[in-house]
């Protein structure tokens, strides 16, 4: 606390309290490893803001002599080290929260230590913070871990970063060192989309530019760390457009009162506003905003209130009250960036309890799309997510939830994974905007407007009688160059010659027209298959057999195609051949490019190909040859009575 505050406390406590009453909270994160001087910085902030009581200081001075690392001096780091065992090991092992206050703000520091559990702890600490202080040792500059910390802070939605270049005293307060680090770090952070970035040269040990402007660095004219913390504006980060209130409790003390209690998670609500109950979609109007201090005219995040509605609509815990116009997404599948926090890896298919907002539903990872190397930020293929790994996961839930993209709303965009047996929190997820993930949006999107499918006046069995066949879609799936399209055309010819009628949808032709807007990312591949499935369905509706040849590397996507077309008229044929054979056939150089790292999305090389779990037929194309493969497919169709 500054001296002026101390004076005010002594002379006019009422004035001080009035001032204190108007403070707001800033929650921030400090990131750095043991040697970066993080604990020293926090100790310095607490000490210089007079938050250390005398008895604590006595203990520290005493402990500094036995365990301290600052020979002779006071080791401020001891102030922030907590648990006994940790102190003996000389490290801190979890997120610790520190509190201090100045005349302007109350601060909550999430202090996360830098060692192997770092990703998990930092994600935990960052989840509630608005700002991160990234410590960089002036002697060592920007390290891989600096980039890692920055990436995780950004991933968790922190929009304000302060790079504190510490230990400036050890480089003679050299401006050149500071400038070089700034340039190096800026080159990296400019790619991450950070709203606000500050650089400050400090010495936590000596207090330079922490609270007081440093006399040792006259070349630095910017704000001290404390000045920045006191003045940075984070209020604008909040979404005040889209009202959301996840219902925690239905408050029903007697038959005359029925209120819905919860914390506003975004936007502003006023009495008289229309609200939608999500996911049921029922509408009503806010009657009162009830609190023990009296009814309010309006409420906004993060206020905890109780709303009453003018209609007797059905609302339960887990529902979200939202403003019409900009509703949250409703889906039982979503893509999320997941930080894994348990020794047992995240394995696609294994079930977890997913807690989101005020709901708990059972869910599993349907697809692990990629893992992020936190040092290089490269995406890489992975079959599971280990402790402290981060990856993009398609989450499948047993019930639909109402969610927002994490970037738009932290409360509605965050979820945790809970182990069903141990009950431990094993992972944390941040939802992507499904609009950004084309695949997600289109498969699950509810069509706009009041639409009805018209019914044809020609019945399916009339068509079957005329054509002598029952329509079916055959998906020929397999890696590039395995022979999908050639075999599809061979089947088409054989069917035609036998009096049947079939048509081929092949991946390349399809991409020349219908999907010319799509690339080869997993999302775009998925959307390509969705369009193909819808097209095949129309072809089948016309009575024709549809032979489709697509790589379709994801089991989950093939499964969706099956559901879109109809279980009873979908057959999956898996074509395989040794990868070496496929590479031999690689006239257009696709595999070669993948191996050079120039083609990022080549299943079998740079991306996984999920082998079909239960194909109707598996054919080794190299061994059998085209004609035999086509004959086996004809046999399959005959065996299933699609043709005679």
């Amino acid at each position, binding site marked *: 606390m500054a001296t002026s505050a101390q004076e005010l406390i*002594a002379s006019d406590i009422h004035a001080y309290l009035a001032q204190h009453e108007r403070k707001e*909270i800033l929650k921030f994160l400090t990131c750095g490893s043991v040697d970066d001087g993080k604990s020293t910085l926090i100790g310095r902030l607490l000490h210089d803001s007079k938050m250390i009581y005398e008895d604590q200081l006595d203990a520290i001075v005493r402990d500094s002599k036995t365990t301290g690392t600052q020979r002779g001096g006071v080791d401020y780091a001891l102030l922030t080290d*907590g648990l006994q065992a940790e102190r003996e090991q000389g490290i801190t092992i979890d997120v610790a929260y520190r*509190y201090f206050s100045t005349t302007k703000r109350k601060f909550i520091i999430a202090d996360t230590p830098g060692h192997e559990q770092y990703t998990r702890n930092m994600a*935990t600490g960052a989840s509630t913070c608005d700002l991160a202080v990234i410590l960089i040792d002036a002697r060592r500059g920007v390290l891989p871990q600096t980039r890692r910390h920055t990436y995780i802070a950004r991933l968790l939605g922190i929009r304000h970063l302060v790079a504190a270049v510490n230990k400036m005293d050890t480089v003679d307060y050299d401006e050149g060192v500071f400038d070089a680090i700034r340039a190096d770090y800026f080159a990296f952070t400019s790619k991450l989309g950070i709203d606000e970035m500050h650089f400050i040269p400090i010495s936590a040990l000596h207090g330079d530019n922490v609270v007081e402007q440093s006399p040792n660095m006259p070349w630095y004219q910017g704000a001290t760390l404390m000045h920045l913390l006191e003045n940075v504006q984070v209020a604008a980060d909040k979404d005040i457009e889209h009202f959301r209130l996840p219902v925690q409790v239905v408050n029903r003390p007697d038959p005359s009162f029925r209120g819905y209690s919860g914390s506003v998670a975004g936007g502003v609500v006023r009495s008289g506003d229309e609200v939608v109950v999500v996911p049921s979609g029922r509408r009503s109007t806010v009657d009162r905003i009830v609190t*023990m201090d009296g009814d309010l005219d309006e409420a906004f995040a993060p206020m905890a209130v109780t709303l009453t509605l003018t209609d007797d609509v059905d609302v339960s815990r887990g529902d979200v009250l939202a403003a019409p116009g900009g509703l949250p997404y409703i889906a039982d599948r979503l893509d999320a960036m997941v930080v894994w926090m348990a020794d047992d890896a995240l394995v696609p298919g294994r079930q977890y309890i997913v807690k989101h907002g005020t709901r708990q539903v059972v869910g599993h990872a349907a697809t692990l799309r990629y893992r992020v190397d936190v040092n290089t930020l490269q995406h890489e293929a992975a079959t599971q997510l280990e402790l402290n790994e981060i990856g993009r996961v398609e989450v499948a839930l047993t019930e639909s939830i109402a969610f927002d993209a994490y970037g738009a709303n932290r409360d509605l965009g965050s979820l945790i994974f809970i182990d069903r047996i141990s009950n431990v929190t094993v992972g944390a997820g941040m939802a992507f905007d499904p609009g950004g993930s084309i695949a997600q949006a289109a498969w699950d999107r509810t069509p706009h407007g009041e639409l009805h499918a018209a019914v044809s006046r020609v019945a399916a069995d009339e068509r079957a009688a005329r054509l002598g066949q029952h329509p079916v879609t055959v998906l020929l799936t397999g890696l590039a160059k395995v022979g999908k399209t050639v075999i599809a055309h061979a089947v088409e010819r054989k069917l035609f010659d036998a009096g049947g009628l079939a048509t081929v949808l092949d991946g390349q032709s399809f991409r020349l027209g219908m999907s010319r807007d799509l690339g080869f990312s997993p999302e775009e591949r998925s959307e390509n298959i969705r369009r193909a499935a819808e097209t095949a369905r129309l072809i089948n509706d016309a009575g024709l057999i549809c032979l489709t040849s697509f790589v379709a590397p994801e089991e989950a996507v093939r499964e969706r195609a099956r559901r879109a077309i109809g279980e009873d008229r979908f057959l999956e044929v898996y074509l395989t051949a040794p990868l070496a054979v496929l590479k031999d056939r690689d006239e257009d150089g696709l595999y070669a490019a993948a191996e050079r790292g120039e083609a990022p999305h080549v299943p079998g090389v740079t991306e996984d190909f999920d082998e079909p779990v239960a194909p109707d037929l598996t054919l080794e194309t190299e061994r059998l040859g085209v004609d035999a493969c086509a004959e086996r497919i004809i046999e399959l169709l005959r065996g299933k009575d699609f043709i005679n």
Partner: protein
Amino acid sequence: MPGYTLTHLKQLEAESIHIIREVAAEFERPVLLYSIGKDSSVLLHLARKAFYPGRLPFPLLHVDTTWKFRDMIAFRDRIARELDLDLIVYTNEEGRAANVTPFTYGSRKYTDIMKTQALKDALDKYGFDACFGGARRDEEKSRAKERVYSVRDRNHRWDPKSQRPELWNLYNGRINPGEEVRVFPLSNWTELDVWQYVYLENIEIVPLYLAAERPVVERDGTLIMVDDDRMELEPGEEPTMRSVRFRTLGCYPLSGAIESEAATLPEIIQEMLIATHSERQGRVIDYDTSGSMEQKKREGYF
């Protein structure tokens, strides 16, 4: 658009209410551990706000060691009556029968039997699966890492290794039968926040927090109030009337008073801000060894 921001106290209040509602919704038998102190009073106030206009959907539990200040008991009973609360008072009757007092067994053993063991017995007897406590992270260094939901095993013990990461406001309240969660809605409050909130919200507190003339003896450098005639005076000890108040309230023979003239809340806050000693120093039980609070937590005391 105006800036839709809350003051820090309103923000803390909202966060605490969120936690209290979440516990009430997800647990079968929650209970509020009511110590009659200022933190408990704030906690109770927040719980009432959470369910207004309804009643509290859970009871209060007071573990009565039989050595609380008389003013505390009178306050407790009046508040329970006036606010229409379900109050459960639990005393370790075995301990009482064996005459376990701070004088006969020493502070550590007495606290273990009459407080820690009594609490565990009460939790077992009533089958509570979630207990609200008023502890704050700023009280003591080892508490800085305490979760809002602190999971306890079947023996009510805290294991630092089994604590769960807490992200956002997504609290994980899933437990196996027999386990319980201690919930600390005031985790992010500081002592100053609590006092200021008491002041702003006009929350009633036990008068012992305010300075008044009280009979005290000085023992090992600590001022102990002679609250009733069970207090065994040592040779040469003579109670004297001094203007004192208490920064924390517990069992009167274990609660050190401080000399003070602060008879109003602003005066207390003023003294506190100028003070150079941290809050728990008033409690005798902390003096055992450095890190003793950590030890007590593992044993099942808060």
